[in-house]
């Protein structure tokens, strides 16, 4: 359980020069940061790097942290931003041009009957399909969509966390949803055909 008062005490210790106070904060919030980073990046190594970078940035900017605020929420926004940076760095390493193209077609391109995603949701195949779809998203699309869908953040919160205009965050989610839908539809069609 996160204890706001204890966080404030730990922050005060760090500000007073006691680095061990920061270890306390990492013990309390490290798992949350890691979970967010892993969901956003989908890569364990990137997630570890994001944890390091998030705590380092938090330490560097601790003088900007307002004591009245919740440390966990503040750190969470930093981590979301770090994860987004990691996604962009990965795209650069892979020399990928960030796609922003629109997908065509209505949602009914995805068959709703068997073997739909609900049927497979617990299986490795769905995991593979979903991750393939996520890999096709741009860094921005993936970051915004992860925060919207997996973290339950509202568009305004996503925009604030990633430094975007609200409309840009919203459009990124739309594009990501289309890519997910298209990837699942591509996979579902042959399967449906095979049945017939």
């Amino acid at each position, binding site marked *: 359980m996160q204890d706001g008062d204890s966080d404030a005490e730990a922050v005060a210790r760090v500000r007073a020069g006691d680095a061990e106070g920061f270890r306390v904060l990492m013990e309390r919030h490290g798992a949350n940061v890691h979970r967010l980073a892993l969901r956003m990046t989908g890569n364990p190594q990137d997630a570890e790097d994001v944890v390091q970078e998030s*705590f380092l940035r938090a330490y560097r900017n601790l003088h900007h942290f307002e004591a009245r605020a919740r440390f966990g929420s503040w750190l969470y926004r930093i981590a979301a931003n770090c994860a987004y940076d990691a996604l962009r760095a990965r795209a650069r390493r892979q020399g990928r041009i*960030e796609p922003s193209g629109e997908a065509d077609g209505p949602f009914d391109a995805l068959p709703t009957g068997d073997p739909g995603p*609900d049927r497979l949701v617990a299986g490795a195949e769905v995991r593979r399909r979903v991750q393939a779809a996520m890999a096709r998203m741009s860094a921005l699309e993936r970051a915004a969509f992860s925060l919207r869908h997996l973290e339950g953040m509202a568009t305004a919160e996503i925009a604030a966390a990633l*430094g975007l205009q609200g409309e840009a965050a919203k459009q990124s989610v739309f594009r990501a949803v289309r890519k*997910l839908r298209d990837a699942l539809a591509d996979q579902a069609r042959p399967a449906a055909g095979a049945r017939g």
Partner: protein
Amino acid sequence: MNAPIVHPADDDLVLHYYDEGPAGAVEVHLGQCAACRQRFEALRHALASLTPETAVPAGAPAFGPAEVERAWRTLAPKLARERTRSRLRGVMLPLAMAAALVVAFTLGRRWPAPAEDPARGSERVLLVALGDHLERSEMLLVELVNAPAEGPLDIGPERLQAEELLGASRLYRAAATRAGEPGLAGVLEELERLLVEVAHRPSPISSDDLARLQRRIDARGLLFKVRVLGARVRTRQTDAIPGPAAVS
């Protein structure tokens, strides 16, 4: 005559799924339109496939006590370096202020500079401090110029650095003006304006904003000027200085 039926767009259905769209209209329409209900169901199926479990690779490690311990062992030395840097920054600003006073005095007097000039030590202190200031400014400009302008970018560290450099830069510029060094003062003034701009930019910075900043640095040749100035200062550090530090 009945009004034409307007079916919600795909994006409207996404907003409806996340409870972000205008409440009511889509809900009412879905209650009346079987085709759109089917579209919405297809969307729901697609989105249901993305869960916290399917988003991550199978067998991805959790972040338990062992991972915390390992992460802390990596992080702790970085924090120690940060503390050292922070302390150095705390020392550098007063030093820069002191050096600025020296420049005001030494350059302002424009004394003849024989080899045995007792003020030469002070001038060297000034040149070392000014050289360091220009080098740090150059590094900041290089980071900004080379930053990828492809999306929002966290410039928190650069903002902090700009804030720190700003105070010293003002002092150097004022001292150079007093000492009748218009070239040096001019470059420092340009640098100062840029530092103000960086320090006041929001972070993360938008790609448009960053591109504007990069164009501004580029258009004025500021990086080049700071480099040239820095090189001259470094040369002066090693030379015997017969007169005022004419680094402009």
